[in-house]
């Protein structure tokens, strides 16, 4: 399997305890997570984007099959597409039990497939002899990739299509 040889320096495997706990619960180690471009933040609102909640999070950048960051247009400029996995318990001030959001992405950032950046997806895309797994969730996809199974992640059960308004 064509693994990416540009593995990061181990000193860059900086993840919070909450992030490490989450990664390990999915069978992903810090090295692989870092290789996939993931990192953790204490406050997603301040450190990633003001649209996110002020909570600790694992940041999951998306890359295309060529390994370049997936981007979307916002306010006249290109912004890297990321999803965040919030970590720890959220403070919810409510008498009614609310479902706490675990994942979030920026408004208008679209739907994208997740290609864990530990394989050369450009080659896999053309090599039909290579079986592919598709699963729901970035960490699941990364976990399977780490075990030798090229796996594409989708951000939701039906996030393999993009919806468009207007006539066909």
């Amino acid at each position: 399997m064509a693994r990416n040889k540009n593995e990061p320096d181990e000193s860059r495997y900086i993840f919070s305890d909450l992030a490490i706990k989450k990664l390990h619960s999915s069978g992903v180690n810090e090295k692989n997570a870092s290789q996939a471009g993931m990192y953790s933040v204490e406050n997603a609102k301040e450190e990633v984007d003001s649209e996110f909640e002020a909570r600790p999070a694992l940041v999951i950048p998306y890359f295309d099959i060529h390994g370049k960051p997936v981007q979307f247009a916002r306010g006249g400029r290109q912004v890297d597409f990321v999803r965040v996995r919030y970590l720890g318990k959220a403070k919810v001030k409510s008498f009614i039990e609310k479902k706490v959001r675990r994942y979030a992405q920026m408004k208008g950032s679209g739907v994208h497939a997740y290609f864990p950046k530990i394989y050369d997806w450009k080659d896999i895309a053309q090599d039909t002899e290579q079986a592919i797994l598709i699963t729901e969730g970035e960490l699941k996809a990364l976990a399977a990739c780490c075990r030798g199974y090229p796996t594409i992640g989708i951000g939701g059960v039906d996030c393999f299509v993009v919806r468009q308004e207007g006539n066909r």
Partner: protein
Amino acid sequence: MTTSKFLPELEAFQWAGRDVFVIYDSDISQKARVKEAEQKLCSILSERGAETYKVRLPDDNDKVGLDDYLLDHSDDDLFDLLQSTNAASPSYVLPKTLKELMDTDYPPTQWIWEKFILKGEVNLLYANGGVGKSMLALNLAIHCASGLPFLEDTTTSTPVLILFAEDGEAEVNRRAKAIYASIKPVKKPPRKSPDLFGNTSLSDIPALKKNPSIKLWCNPLEGATLATISDTGEITEEPRLHNLRAELKKIGKPAFIILDSLIDLFNMNEILRPPVNSALKKVLGGVNCHAKVPHLGGNLHLKLPHLIC
């Protein structure tokens, strides 16, 4: 209207001949929406030639995702699980072999007029102006309505509905009389002695003239246009099409519809017009559907033949 499109980055993959294992969480069996999504994904991939597999993760009443499974199982376990999963049925009808095709018995082709007018289809009659297309159509209608052979080829006895856009009642009257005058007695075998041939009595002809199974509009004052078809194939129905459907419902069974002539009946750009047959099938396809057969007490999908002059 909202439409959905396969993600471009996934569209960029070569899928034909590739094995693709779709793995949702183990609680998929309890979630209709997830199963629906799984089916849709497999269909999209299958349409592109992939061999798809719907993998079921084992669980002990706890939700198990692919990452959870890998925590408790080895790589080989996953390999075995994938190997033991049967391929999903392809989402499209597979092509047949010629042998399968030839080994299958199909019903014979159905004709309104043997060798020329197919039953249940749109048949187009093209020719230069003035050569007698309308006359031929009326002649055929008269023979079909009575099940008489026409130009030595058999016809199927069928009610006929005609819309003449160019010819008025007086002209059609003259033509019909001329046609009836030209109809020759038809030889047919007597019932009890197949070796002898008798002549059909000309007394059949008056009954033929009053044949109620032919109805026609001749250059109707309110206009003959059935539909307007834009350059892009978009169809706008006109009142005459509703009239046509209403009359077909009254007939209550498959009918032979003659529409004369095409340009008068369908407003369209002659230079940029979409394929005529396709557009007509769209318009007349609506006529085919749900023609009510009262004695069966329900709506049947009836195929109606059409002849366009």
